[in-house]
């Protein structure tokens, strides 16, 4: 076998192994959700079992999955749109009109991600209480948008950097205002980058648990709160928890699958140009 072909084979083998390792917990959760509680906790892992839907029925009986799912969709997409509205002009300014402090500002923005959120929980909670934002969609949309803003600005900044400055300058010579530059030139040229940034933001917001557990109770509680409510009861709960988790990640998994092409294109944008 020629070495290049063997190399290719090794690489794809390695790829499959890594992919399997990454995917294994999800697969296991998925399988567990179809087991009886007894099977689920049995010491010997087995993949041959009598599948049952009883966990799903139990989960749906105890909590209205669709209301939680709807909340998750509203909050994660809402926060992503809100964050993009602020991040696009910010990244545009930083990418094309950098000042001496642009680099520092970017780093500082990222550094805010290092602060444990619990550090600001009390003030945020009190502010939200006074503004009556507790347990509201708007409240979580704002918090998630702020939470993801640094990463979104960073990602958009790197994507915008890829757009040749000359093209925007040509737009300026043609009489485009900054807003028109964004609308007619920069945004259409950065669709893959903006899409993958948005996708990442949706996923991060979808998975966020800390703020959603602390700032919501019933009305605006998203799927993370839904899962959490299955982890505490007495008795056996592994299979039910798995079912709840599977239901919680299913929408985002399907969404991610559908937008896979955009995501990959966006994440490798700089590399293949």
């Amino acid at each position: 076998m020629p070495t290049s072909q063997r190399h290719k084979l090794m690489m794809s083998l390695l790829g499959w192994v890594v992919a399997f390792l990454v995917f294994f917990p999800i697969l296991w959760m998925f399988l567990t959700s179809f087991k009886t509680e007894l099977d689920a906790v049995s010491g010997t892992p087995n993949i041959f079992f009598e599948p049952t839907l009883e966990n799903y029925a139990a989960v749906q009986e105890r909590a209205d999955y669709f209301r939680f799912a709807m909340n998750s969709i509203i909050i994660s997409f809402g926060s992503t749109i809100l964050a993009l509205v602020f991040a696009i002009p910010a990244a545009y300014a930083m990418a094309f009109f950098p000042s001496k402090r642009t680099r520092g500002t970017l780093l500082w923005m990222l550094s805010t991600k290092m602060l444990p959120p619990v550090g600001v929980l009390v003030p945020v909670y009190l502010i939200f209480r006074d503004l009556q934002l507790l347990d509201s969609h708007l409240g979580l949309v704002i918090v998630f948008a702020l939470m993801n803003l640094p990463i979104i600005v960073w990602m958009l900044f790197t994507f915008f950097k890829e757009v040749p400055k000359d093209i925007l300058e040509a737009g300026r010579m043609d009489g485009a205002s900054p807003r028109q530059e964004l609308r007619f030139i920069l945004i259409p040229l950065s669709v893959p980058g903006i899409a993958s940034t948005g996708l990442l933001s949706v996923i991060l917001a979808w998975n966020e648990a800390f703020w959603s557990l602390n700032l919501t109770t019933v009305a605006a509680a998203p799927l993370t709160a839904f899962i959490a409510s299955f982890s505490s009861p007495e008795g056996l709960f592994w299979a039910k928890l798995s079912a709840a988790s599977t239901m919680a990640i299913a929408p985002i998994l399907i969404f991610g699958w559908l937008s896979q092409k955009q995501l990959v294109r966006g994440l490798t944008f700089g590399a293949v140009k």
Partner: protein
Amino acid sequence: MATLTLRNIKKVYGDVEVIQDLSLDIEDREFVVLVGPSGCGKSTLLRMIAGLEEISGGDLSIDDERVNELPPDRRGLAMVFQSYALYPHMTVADNMAFALRLAGVSREERMAKVGEAAKILHLEPLLDRKPRALSGGQRQRVAIGRAIVREPRVFLFDEPLSNLDAALRVQMRIEIARLHNSLDATMIYVTHDQVEAMTMADKIVVMNAGHIEQVGSPLDLYHHPESLFVAGFIGSPKMNFIEAKIASVGGDGTKVALSDGTKVAVPVSGGGMSSGDAVTLGVRPEDLTAVANDQATGGDLAGRVVVAERLGGETFLYTEVLDGQTLNLKGPGAMTYRVNDAIRLRIDGATCHLFRDDGKALPRLARNPMADLDAEPVAPGAAG
């Protein structure tokens, strides 16, 4: 219709002054070419005129109106970028119509104007393509078309042809010159290419390290360079420079002695110079002649051929004379000298230039008639 006036223009980046106190007048419909070594500030100057770069000091006026603070589109200029800078997501037609669309021109009128420009530039079959489906030359034409459609008062070009191959460059050069004639627009053109500068310009501006060295018509700069820098920059291959000392100063010229004692009489005024002062003798490769040994006289330099480049129609010889100084010679294609051949070079003093040690040229006693060829129209019957 546009005249441009630059008065004491400055550009500062941080604490580096990249343009210092630059003043320049550009007449209506003039074709002005900016040349200078890399990093001397040509692009910066052009971008300040365009409004893409803030002007740190001084006044820029177009048609006697100060435009320092006007945004680019209100200055009535169009720019053609070296990278073409076409909008990759728009068709050729949309690229050319973009400015009109922003200005709120109706669709029919836009299409009419784009059609007109496309006809001039032979772009009609390409109007529905995206830029990535065009060749380099076609992209360049679209970029020019985009400028034309706006009917600007002034066209700015920053090395527009440098990404094209040689043949296409010649073709586009001619096309731009033709456009200049038919559009009656003022054009400012940055280039590195000697031929473009010499053939297209009404006026060449030679820049060096952020200031203007000399402004003049191409042949004026060629025949009457005011400094060593301009002399070395205009003309290809580059002018030869030889160390010399003043031998005598007279009313009919200045005589210099080379290191081997050879005397050369140059028709320049030696005012302020005295015998023994160090000067630089400049002689263009095309003004040097190789002479056969049997015709040698005392005034020839003996040397050796180091490199011979034959272009078919002409030959460039790189020779070593006077203890290691190199002299380049441009001669006819039929020269038979080979590497390491002995050679005798004759310097014709009448075509030489002299430069003081501060780099300034000693003024010539008479103007070269070629330098004023285009300056004044020849009156009918004047020849008789």
